[in-house]
């Protein structure tokens, strides 16, 4: 088995086995604690340019399939696992993880002490790194890692957003529709009456497809616009509401997107997720900051402050909205129970709300799907 090495800017080098594509890539090294859903994670555009470590030990077991896809291509630079399965075992699978990564040009490494790596990132913060199956000179790799470009201040949305507008009509299928939850005794809530069709413009900064599926499943006609679209372009379509998607990297340099959102707040109901949440906050006057090692995983507890109940959420963000910078107009609606950071915001007077995490799940728990219902209610209230 060919070897590969992962070098960090602090000089640490991990040597393991190459899998997936061969080559050399650089990027921010981060980790994700989800125990399932590597294919959705690999296809999540928010990971653009990153080298991601899965903390779960055995990855690739169920192979890859045609359904667990969250965007048109794999955006990640490198993929780090403790142990990659050489076979795919699931009735849905169409191939192995290795072949999938190789075909998509994602460089992989396995067999390294991923826990040691995660402990380093946790205590020292995320850092840049180089993953290579070709270069075996550790000094050279470390030098490359130290000079690799950081995410901070970089506009990565332009690298992942669609080039043109398109319509979205796919709904959730039976396998991804959250199961209805009964009351004691087993009684299910009555099926909601079909609501009238609404038109939503989704500003795509690197949107996960399951978001659009959730909107479509709530009888929304979704027009997907590139994240660079202006407020006028959105308003020209006379939608009933606007959705601000997730996306990669630092929200700070995305002044054009903030401008667009600012032009829409108060004019249409707005719902944002992840980067969309940060853009809405910025548009309302708040600032963002970089977290030490981010939130990436499927087990982050978040409290809905309006009900006091806790939902287990899917998360993927390296930046967050700064508490001190919040303008009076914004109200915190959700908080992370681990570190107390802001997970959800609402405009006090205007129909605009957002969450830092991923209610569309994929991968992750379905606990937060209700947020799409709240958005739908905002559309219906207009």
């Amino acid at each position, binding site marked *: 088995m060919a070897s590969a090495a992962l070098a960090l800017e602090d000089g640490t080098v*991990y040597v393991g086995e190459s899998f997936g594509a061969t080559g050399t890539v650089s990027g921010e090294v981060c980790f994700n*604690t*989800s*125990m399932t*859903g590597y*294919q959705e994670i690999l296809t999540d555009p928010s990971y653009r340019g990153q080298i991601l470590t899965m*903390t*779960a*030990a055995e990855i690739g*077991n*169920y192979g890859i*399939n045609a359904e*667990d896809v969250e965007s048109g291509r794999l955006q990640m630079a490198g993929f780090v696992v*403790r142990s990659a*399965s*050489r*076979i795919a*075992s*699931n*009735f*849905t699978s169409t191939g192995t993880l290795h072949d999938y990564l190789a075909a998509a040009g994602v460089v992989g490494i396995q067999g390294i*002490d*991923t*826990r*040691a790596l*995660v*402990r380093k990132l*946790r*205590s020292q913060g995320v850092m840049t790194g180089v993953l290579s199956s070709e270069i075996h000179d550790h000094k050279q790799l470390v030098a490359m890692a130290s000079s690799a470009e950081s995410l901070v201040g970089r506009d990565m949305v332009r690298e992942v957003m669609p080039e043109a507008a398109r319509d979205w009509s796919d709904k959730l299928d039976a*396998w*991804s529709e*959250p*199961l*209805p*939850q*009964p*009351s*004691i*005794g*087993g*009684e*299910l809530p009555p099926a909601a009456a079909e609501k009238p069709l609404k038109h939503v413009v989704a500003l795509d900064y690197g949107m996960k497809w399951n978001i659009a599926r959730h909107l479509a499943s709530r009888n929304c006609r979704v027009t997907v616009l590139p994240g660079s679209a202006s407020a006028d372009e959105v308003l020209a379509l006379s939608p009933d509401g606007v959705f601000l998607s997730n996306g990669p990297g630092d929200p700070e340099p995305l002044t054009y997107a903030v401008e667009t959102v600012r032009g829409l707040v108060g004019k249409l109901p707005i719902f944002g997720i992840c980067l969309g949440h940060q853009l809405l906050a910025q548009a309302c006057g708040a600032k963002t900051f970089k977290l030490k090692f981010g939130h990436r*995983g*499927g*087990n*982050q*507890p978040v*409290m809905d*402050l309006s009900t006091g*109940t*806790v939902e*287990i959420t899917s998360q993927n963000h390296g930046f967050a909205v700064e508490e001190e910078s919040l303008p009076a107009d914004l109200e915190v609606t959700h908080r992370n*129970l*681990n570190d*107390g950071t802001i997970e959800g915001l609402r405009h006090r007077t205007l129909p605009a709300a957002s969450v830092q995490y991923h209610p569309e799940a*994929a*991968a*992750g*728990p*379905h606990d937060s799907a209700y947020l799409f219902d709240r958005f739908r209610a905002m559309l219906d209230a207009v």
Partner: protein
Amino acid sequence: MVVSQLMPRRDDLHTILLIGSGPIVIGQACEFDYSGTQACKALREDGYRVVLVNSNPATIMTDPGTADRTYIEPLTWQALEKVIEVEKPDAILPTLGGQTGLNLAMDLARRGILEKHGVEMIGANAEVIARAEERELFKATMEKCGLETCRGRTVKSLAEAREVLAEIGLPAVIRPSFTLGGSGSGVAFNKGDFDAKVQRGLDLSPVGEVLVEESILGWKEYEMEVMRDADDNTVIICAIENFDPCGIHTGDSITIAPAMTLTDRQYQRMRDASFAVIRAIGVETGGSNIQFAVHPETGRMIVIEMNPRVSRSSALASKATGFPIAKIAAKLAVGWRLHELPNDITQKTKACFEPSIDYVVVKVPRFAFEKFPEADSRLTTQMKSVGETMAIGRTFKEAFQKALRGLEVGAFGFGSDGKDLWGTPHQPSLDEIKARVAVADPDRVWYLRYALKAGLSMDELYEITQIDRWFLDQLAQIVEIEEQVRAVGTLAGLGEPLLRKAKQAGFSDRQLATMLSVSELDVRETRLRLGVVATYKAVDTCAAEFEAETPYFYSTWESEDEVPAKAPGKKRVMILGGGPNRIGQGIEFDYCCCHASFALREMGIESVMVNSNPETVSTDYDTSDLLFFEPLTCEDVLNIADRVKPDGVIVQLGGQTPLNLARALASAGLPIIGTTVDTIEMAEDREKFRDLLDRLSLKQPASGIAKTLEQARREVARIGYPSLVRPSFVLGGRAMEICYDQAQFERYVAEAFAVAQGQPVLIDRFLEDAIECDVDCICDGEQVIIAGVMEHIEEAGVHSGDSACAIPPHSLSPELVAEIKKAASAMAKSLGVVGLMNVQFAVKKEDGEPQIYVIEANPRASRTVPFVAKATGLPVAKVAVKAMAGLTLAEQGVTADPQPAHVSVKESVFPFVKFAGVDIVLGPEMRSTGEVMGVSDNFSMAFAKGQLAAGTTLPESGTIFLSVAREQAKEAMVDIARRLQTLGFDLIATSGTARTLSAAGITVGVVKKLQEGHPNLIDFLIDGRVQLIMNTPRGKGARTDEGRIRAASVMHGVPCITTLPAAEAVVRAMEAQREMPLSVQAIQDRFPGVASANG
């Protein structure tokens, strides 16, 4: 930080009643001591007064310091009602005492006792429990909320069952309602089989109901551990995937955490479904276990069942993730919400999250079929394993191999060890391999390897076994690495990369040594020279996302180690635990290990626990200062010692497991504390031991030792019959038999040599009709305390672990007891024991004078240590550990033998109901799984309570069958019969015994012997026309008439007494029950003032 209105604990509750799970039986083991102990601590921490009832003395939860009020009393509704009357609890928490606790709480609810005394059920109320436990109600609830269950329904008769079969077809699953561990469950493949299983299920079910449903054999099986709080916050703690597909009880399956072969969508659907189940059933707070089956080709998902309580799997999930399910369940039951409770492991985060794990956990069940050769060893939906071991590794391969060596069955991984048949003359043929992998039994796992070695294709193996291909591929990878190592052929040629690769795949030094024909130590030396050393990683609930405060570790072979350095000035002592439960080694030894930790903590010494049993209190992360969840092999222990640098190692508390390692560990330079290894071995060395007894003028039955069959024959000729034959260095009387003649001797000596595995076989003169005594004592090297003298009820020859016994002795004279104590004391001093010693004596009348014989001495903790502690109030194990750590008995203030003011009886509990057809007669081979304790002012009542606690319902009226084999015993039987008649019972007997009784003027009915036709005793049993059997054996075995009668009595739930002394005790007990009502007493009242000392 978090804006939320705190909803603190309920302050309308003051006293909370907890019910334990009683004796260790198949399906209910140490896990409920673990969960109950956690619950007690959690509730007391919140200021509640906790009242605990449990009949099992060998538990940490029944230590006087665990609960506020502790009742070691029979788990019957009558005893519970008495406790409720005295303690007036506000609430009962029914979900932490296993199925026993749950059933008992339901019984109290149904009888209106809870309502009458104003006791609220918290966690789950009666309605909720019924919805989860009553199959039809459960299925209907599932259907209502849109989840699928197996097609089929509950029936009350065979005719009805046949109707269901017509709808669902064969194979069909049969499950009796309300039985423990799935007792009586099975899969029927043909109509005859179906009828038999339905009939048996109807008999076994306390409500006469069985569920008949479609088979899901071969489907993938999963378990979800769910927690819910009063605010409906619901989380999954762990998803467990079964290696063995559906059709095998999950307790008997190899299981893996986290789930390995589900996509995220498939997993999230199962998560959604789990939440739907717990909400529909309505478990308000606490943990539940929900089992699912998934069709491997379509993903169709079926809910198999749910347990609305903490379970064996939740204990496993707690150990697998670091999330203390039982503790949190107790807190939620009194009103806390998940996000208000801290995650102990990280301290900084809250308990409201879902653990993420960055390792793989494998659990492997441990079986005891060698004890029940007549039992069917095929695994079914009825649980048959007696214990389990868990292993943690960074990959499946590593965890799997570690678990196999942690099983302690002579294997050191997945083959390539002393147990491996491959490459030997016994290597199985391809046909045999195919046949063996098709049948799930305890040995299938070894045949999976042979199949891979024999080149069976993955598809073929999958077709035969339905084990997921991912698992099969992992096994194939292990075999590939094995073959790479074998191809190199020499240790010198191995090289660091392949050595590391093999270690990372879980290969032990022993396996490598076997493959490379070198010694285990050679491998170790080479390994250390090449820098291939074990590193230890923390179990932290969060995949390293947050810092872990709790030091709970497992080994792997990577770059970074997380074990904290020894604090300056602190000493560290390592305690070696007992590994998986088995018959003869179980919770009693875990109890001792826990007490070692408590004692060391009191002395300011850091305790380091090493154990591989996930059920136990010892593997709770807050029992010791450091916990290593590791197999108990020489290599694994030395690797830990390399890292923690212990100042002492305790080997005398974990049963035979650590003792078997003691010599090797001492040779490797580990500082064994307490009694030296030389002394431990000396007590096992027949000649040295005889010399010692001679010096002390103590008698021993004639004995000999043989290394060969020839020698054995010479020895038995010298010693004479009856003689007792057994292998040395084996606990629990494995392959121990009494031989009355040459023919029996030849048969049993061969078995003993087979079990001895190269160690010698011991032959003793057997003392017939002697009274046996056990003595547990503590010695600090100078002074001796006799903690307890136990007189056995059954005569010598019945294994001490199977015999009932009493403290203080009930028939021996005070002079004789004093002499026994003196003898034990002299032995302890002469041997130089530091710590515990157990001595077995036999008292035999010779020429009218009682003579004391020493049977054996074991300078280590015995199975009776916790019973003695509970009977006397002396924290025996703690005192012994402090002595080992250097505090003299005088320094501890322990200067006089305890003198209990009441009588305590220990009674044994057997697993016969799980092994249909097995003869239950007692002998020198131990077969009990657990024990209970009965306490009263007098022996008769204490014995009666012991019987009640053991589940033996002594009748108050009806018919008793008497049968006595030996001529000289008939006189004693006449006395028993007369007293039974006085109590108003009708007596029946077969012609021989009937003649004797009639001659003595006793009225007795005659019943036919089995070979005389019908109606015979078995017909009486089937018809419920006999309530008690007293049958002392003439012969043994399931094929004899007596054996069939005894086996039938088990199946029909009629108590069967098999020894004369026990029959006498039973009569006394029945007489006592007539005269006085059952009374209960808290242990804190028996021993005022010890609670704080005996924490």
